[in-house]
């Protein structure tokens, strides 16, 4: 692999609006039974103050993708740029990848009876466009980045956030800028 593309999600900017989720659906007109990109609200108790904090997760195009390992038909492949692509034509709908992924990203499409997942809009990238989710994010909280040491050494760039599965399992290509909590004057203190 010459490089590893991935997502940088900024919880400081993200308001959890789900624009990215729906932009992805709009781009691919995907079935209601799957959510290739999913916005999660992190648990209040995992942070110092109660606020609404969100992350947005598409496929993490892991460096050790479990989906690729377990798939019996070899439907998954990893490109030179690190994108993990699922070839739906080969898929037989055994759903083992849906069991193997800690992030629940490959999902079973009940209409087509095959699995699907985010493919980092590789066709758009190859045309020089941004992925649909990144292009649609109004607060500009989502970016496609190259995951490398340089990025990881930047201040504020985190490999994980509270509530995320241990990145050591699959080495996901997602990085975070953690949420910043302002001053709160609340009535319950």
């Amino acid at each position, binding site marked *: 692999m010459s490089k590893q593309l991935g997502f940088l999600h900024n919880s400081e900017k993200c308001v959890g609006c789900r624009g990215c989720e729906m932009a992805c659906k709009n781009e691919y007109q995907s079935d209601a039974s799957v959510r290739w990109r999913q916005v*999660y609200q992190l*648990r209040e108790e995992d942070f110092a103050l109660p606020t609404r904090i969100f992350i947005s997760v598409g496929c993490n195009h892991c460096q050790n993708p479990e989906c690729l390992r377990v798939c*019996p*038909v070899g439907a998954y492949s990893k490109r030179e740029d690190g994108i993990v692509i699922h070839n739906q034509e080969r898929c037989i*709908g055994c759903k083992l990848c849906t069991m193997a992924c*800690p992030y629940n990203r490959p999902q079973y499409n009940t209409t087509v009876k095959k699995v699907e997942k985010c493919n980092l809009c590789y066709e758009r990238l190859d045309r020089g466009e941004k992925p649909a989710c990144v292009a649609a994010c109004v607060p500009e909280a989502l970016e496609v980045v190259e995951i490398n040491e340089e990025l990881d050494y930047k201040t504020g760039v985190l490999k994980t956030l509270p509530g995320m599965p241990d990145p050591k*399992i699959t080495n996901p290509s997602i990085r975070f800028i953690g949420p910043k909590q302002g001053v709160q004057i609340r009535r319950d203190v």
Partner: protein
Amino acid sequence: MGNWEWPLVIFTVLGQTAVGMIFCLWLTERKRSKSGAAPSPEYQSFIKSSVLVSGLLLAVAMLASLFHLGQPLAAYRALTHLSTSWLSREILFFALTLGVWVYLFVLSRKPGTRLTGILALTSLLGLLGIISSALIYTLPRVPAWNNLGPVLFFLLTGLLLGALVIAALGRKALGQAEMKQTVCLALGSVLASLFLYLFYFSGLKVTPEGGATAQILFASPLFWLRAVVGWLLPLILLLVTVSKKEKPQPGLILLVLTCGVVGELLGRGLFYLSAVGIQILGLL
């Protein structure tokens, strides 16, 4: 995970039973070939029906597994990722097992043929199939499965039910010693299974997902049913059988077999149902 997965329950339990049966047949045949005694007509009939039943179980199992797939007609593609996929390897081994079983079946119809070798080969391929099956589920994503548990559970299912079916089919044909050996295998499997589970549960608490699995099981009335019907009853009945000198009554064997089958089916369903995967902890 999270559902009963009936196709997979049937595939694994029946398939493992089939392999277990062939393994028990191999043990029996091996002993007999050493002693050199000529097989009785009942024994020959027993061999033929056991081989047939094992093949039927294997075929039904593999057919059932197709119902799990979204695209059953494309199942043949499952053989194409042997490099890393245990599922591919499982299909390969079971396919080979079935293939070799055909030869076994042909030989079994020829009275007087020594089946030890072919039974050994079939058992070995089946064993590799069972181990592959179990390794499919040994996923880092599912802490409750990410250990030797699945391998041991699956092997024990095969041994327990295989031995019981053989005992049931051979209730007339098998000799007292052979019956005893077979029943002992069953008893040993139940004991091993029980102790394995106790040991397994204590280890589950180490991870939150494992702990959640334990909670689901303990809170489920079906789990307690499985414990009674699948461990307790067979344990008692088998101990009673082994303690007696005479050959066990056929009715008793069938009862233990029924309990065992129900127990294993329930247990396998609970295995799938109770698994809790690591996930992003948040509101969806």
